């Protein structure tokens, strides 16, 4: 049975169709990549799955339970964690306190939450930043804190929205290492979106390609990139973009 089943999910904003009848299954232990050019509807799909937007049509089940009409925080409590593309923190909480908020999903006790948070920070190799404020950290470390916070909530599945954005190649390498460890050592399934292909290709067992809100391909990374429709959707967009940029310059 699939851990996460997305059935015919559509999301409209007024007249705009952000997602159109997208379906896929994610099994326990999967690392599933969700790719597509900018504006393909990846983040919208994430928001639909995680309960941040109500669906226009379709349904989502998680662990065999229908979560279509559940609220965002109820879905989170079932073990579906997500990270955000833009992680804003105004800076009232220290790093350790931030991670503790994740731990508090599973316990009421401050001492237990603190212990679990310390464990997560340690796991991600940023134990020394615990006392700092979020705003004092570089972007790469902030992303790790976001991961640690999600990890502290002890999820079954993590939805990672563009975790690689804004990182340099060596930081991305480190991130891939971390994600692999989260997957293998904590046995957490992963669903990641990325418009930087490099990371998804290195991590995913399977990838799904979205374009203009529709699923256009699904399969192993190596096969999918050969799919002519994917090449057209993906590279075409990039080529057009590059030409525009060149034209501007």
């Amino acid at each position, binding site marked *: 049975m699939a851990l996460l089943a997305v059935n015919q999910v559509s999301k409209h904003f007024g007249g705009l169709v952000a997602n159109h009848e997208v379906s896929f299954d994610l099994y326990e232990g999967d690392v599933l990549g969700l790719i597509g050019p900018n504006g393909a509807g990846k983040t919208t799909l994430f928001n639909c799955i995680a309960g941040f937007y109500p669906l226009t049509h379709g349904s989502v089940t998680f662990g065999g339970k229908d979560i279509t009409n559940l609220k965002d925080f109820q879905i*989170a409590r079932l073990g579906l964690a997500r990270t*955000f593309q833009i*992680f804003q*923190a105004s800076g*009232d909480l220290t790093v350790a306190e931030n991670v503790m908020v994740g731990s508090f999903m599973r316990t009421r006790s401050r001492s237990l939450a603190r212990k679990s948070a310390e464990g997560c920070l340690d796991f991600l190799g940023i134990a020394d930043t615990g006392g700092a404020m979020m705003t*004092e950290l570089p972007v790469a470390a902030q992303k790790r804190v976001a991961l640690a916070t*999600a990890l502290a909530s002890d999820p079954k599945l993590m939805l990672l929205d563009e975790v690689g954005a804004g990182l340099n190649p060596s930081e991305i390498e480190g991130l891939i290492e971390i994600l692999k460890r989260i997957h293998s050592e904590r046995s957490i399934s992963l669903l990641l979106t990325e418009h930087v292909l490099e990371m998804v290709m290195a991590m995913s067992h399977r990838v799904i390609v979205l374009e203009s809100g529709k699923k256009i391909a699904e399969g192993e990374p190596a096969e999918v990139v050969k799919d002519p429709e994917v090449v057209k959707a993906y590279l075409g967009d990039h080529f057009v973009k590059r030409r525009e940029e060149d034209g501007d310059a």
Partner: protein
Amino acid sequence: MEAVKNAFDFADMPKSELTIAGLGMAFLLLFPVLPHSSFAMATMIQFLMFSLYGMGWNLIGGYGGQVDLGKAQYVGIGAYTTAVMMIRWDVPFWISTPIGLALAVGWSFIIGYPLFRLKGHYFAIATIATSLVLKDLFEVWDFVGGARGLELPLKGDFPNWLYLQFREDYYYFYILLGLFVLGLLVVNGFRHSRLGYQLRAIKDNEDVAKSLGIDAHWSKIKAYALATAYVAVVGSFHACYNFNIEPEDIMSLDLSVLIAMMAMLGGAGSMWGPIIGASILVPMKSYLGDWLGGQAGLAGLDLLLYGGIIMFIAAAQPRGVYGIVEAVRARRRK
């Protein structure tokens, strides 16, 4: 019980802050035996009351970031419950206060539910509206004395602990000081509780908080109710201390804003903020009023200066006095 342990756990506070807090507490304990004028005593009592109001407000407004400008309605509920029950049925303070607290908290749940569907300015103005509606209703409600308000009868038999009537102000002072310490411990426990952390996470970023399983709407309502409890109890005390309550005094927008200002000036979202704020604002208002308010032809000058100072603070140091402390500390860390 971990909750009790949390309330007494000050380990995460810097030594310097604890030292200052200890000195301050010693001063408060000794204040009545030090030489002082009765005006200074009255000002100290106001300081303690406004510290408690501000501590309550800080739970939802500071830690939760929800700018509540309607706290006066709960001062009114607390004060009127105590006054009405004493006038009509001779109910002592110690029984009417918990009842007033329960009524206020109950009301806070009822209006908190729709209120917290709103955010930002919309929330702030809606809190004003609810408070003014209640005030206007009290002004036309004969049962509670209408706009003229209520006068509490003298029960005699001083010192009267049942009805909280004393000849000497230091009785009131020490009762308030007891509430003040209790209030501080509850804030400290709250700060370390799951709700405390969750509320700060909501203030930081509500979407992230929800993704961590936090029911933001319900958490805010709970913190709002706890904040209300502080305000209602001090309201009950106010009725006994003042002997006279009227809607214009205790349910006005000015009081709501003043309550919020304590925390805002001292530093919203920090434990000492409301106390710092009250220790600056209350004496300032009180002495400005004493100095200028009474003089013929100068009516309004005290509040004019007061308004000017508020404007200046809001413009120059929006994070309050404690914000300066934190900024200095952050710079030193680097």
